[in-house]
């Protein structure tokens, strides 16, 4: 499903959280997929910053100072762009 409000060109430059690099900060640009409601309730909302802390079957990230573990399939539904250092 194509997330709303993100132009196609920009969408191409986004990466999913599951493929993002560990130890880097990202901005959540879109949350899209069957688990998006649950992800948003948990705190993965558009425009918030997220830092990926660990990779694996379930990856660990920090959103608004809270560490969350989410499955790779769910992280696939979170599209992020890097935050300039």
């Amino acid at each position, binding site marked *: 499903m194509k997330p709303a409000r993100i132009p196609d060109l920009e969408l191409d430059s986004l990466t999913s959280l599951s493929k993002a690099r560990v130890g880097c900060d990202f901005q959540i640009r879109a949350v899209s997929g069957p688990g998006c409601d*649950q992800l948003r309730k948990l705190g993965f909302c558009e425009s918030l910053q997220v830092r990926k802390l660990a990779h694996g079957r379930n990856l660990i990230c920090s959103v*608004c100072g*809270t560490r969350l*573990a989410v499955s790779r*399939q769910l992280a696939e539904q979170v599209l992020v762009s890097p935050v300039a250092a």
Partner: protein
Amino acid sequence: MTDRSELVALVGHPNVGKSTLFNALTGGRAKVGNYPGITVDFQQGSFRTPHGRRLELVDLPGCLSLDGDSPDQEVTRRAIHGEIEQLPAPDLVIAVVDASSLERHLPLVIELLELGKPLVVALNRVDLAERDGLRLEPDKLSEELGVPVVPLRADAGKGIVELKQSLRTPLPAPSQRDWSDTAARRDTAHRIAAVAARRATAHHETTSDRLDRVLLHPVLGWLVFLAIMFVLFWSIFSFASVPMGWIEAGQEWLVGVVEGAMAEGDLRDLLTSGIIEGVGAVVIFLPQILMLFFFIGLLESTGYMARAAYLMDGFMARVGLSGKAFLPLLSSYACAIPGVMATRTIPSAKERLVTIFVAPWMSCSARLPVYLLLIPMLLGGRESTAVQSLVMLGVYALGTLTAFFVARLLRGRLGPDEVEQHFMLELPSYQAPQWGYILRHVLDRGAAFLRKAGTVILGIVILLWAAQTYPKSDSDDPAEQLSHTVVGRVSDAIEPVVRPLGFDGRTGTAVITSFAAREVFVGSMAVLFSVDESDDEAETRDRIRERIAAETWPDGSPMFDIPAVLSLLVFYIYALQCLPTTAVVAREAGSWKWAIGQFVFMSLFAALASLVVYQVGSLIAGS
């Protein structure tokens, strides 16, 4: 105006400190921990405001929003809307939020505002938020939300008076606002959070981040996990020996007092061989049970439990469960009842049913006295505490692995979920243990154990003593006297049934008595195997074990050889001998059929496993 006190409800995300706040407000003893999902049902208390007004307080299970679909979140939604029969709709809501993560918590507060009920926001953990570099402005938050906001530290009792003062009644209802959809609520929450809790832009590494690098490492994390489990069992064997010695000495002293004060006869025998020895044989394990609860409390309180769930998720997935099922299963090591109730946090109904079904195979603390009696018998009493701890770890592992195996089979049969479920878990910051709460929880569990020893176990050992004393025969031969008694007759009747499992009639009788509660087995064995003891000397725990171990079959072969002890151990690993657990399973699964099916299946499985172990073990030992 009605007579009832006004009802205040505590609402917030899981693991935000609601139960800690509940305890701080009411002086209550609600269980607290540091992982999401400790509270799965509502609990009530009351307190007075500084103006002397009495308010009822209800602590509700954590929820991320008011439309959550897991059973614990359903409890919260129904309670807020006044749909629970024994609970009126709350007159006032305290929204508990974590100050360090306002962006995540405010959407729920906004949902609560939309209900139009009087609301107060408890801004908890302000110390941790400020330590993480957040600049909190509670006044601005209050201005934006239009309701009182009270900064506090529920764990340290700070801000509690201010919170009570803010609960002036009647509270004005907040102005009715409707953000129309979740996106609008989220946008408002983010805008307010940006004003009221300014965050330092750079992410700085916290102690929890550093600890997690080790504790959640794919290799190191597992080594630490196994080491923690080993230390837990090792300490149960080693540290508890001192207080056990005190209880033993007290028991001996009591027997001495009774024997000194009373003439020989049935009443004295009832007191010494029946009550003191039977109940004492169980009570002596109190220090070890307290130690188990202490360690589990410590793991919960520090935040390690959620890490254990994270580590276990990959393994759990192979048996058709998820890391979410690990927390209820781990709780079941202490007691299956809270474990079964904790399955309410599992979103998938099928996974929840399977977890409820296998939870009693996580060896609970009631099995501990049985294991502690049998393991030294298995090792001949010669092995060190380290070896005993390893065997104990193996006993726990056997129950756990079998549970996983059955879960895999059952999950396959139930089919996939209608809506695919994924693993999501908050990993709370590590924190220093809340010693006060751990101690209180341990003491509560100890009191519950002693209550059981003073009621169920006492009742059964008295009945058993009577059954193995009466009716009396004219013979002076203890063996003939025993065969004349009720126990002798029951033993003779059941011996052909239990003999293939390696048990004689008395052991079989002790097993039957323990269907009321597992711990009874130890007391029953102490009573049932004391009949041919002629001296009145007080015996130590080891001597009771030695006496049981020295029993022989009529042909002179040892009764409790390795296959027989293994068979008993296996029986107790698998048998579901706890009526309260069966009742809770029926309630949580919503079906007595499921609970009775579980009881019958586990009893038959235990008997079959015992039979196989004894028969194969005897073949190997004989070859």
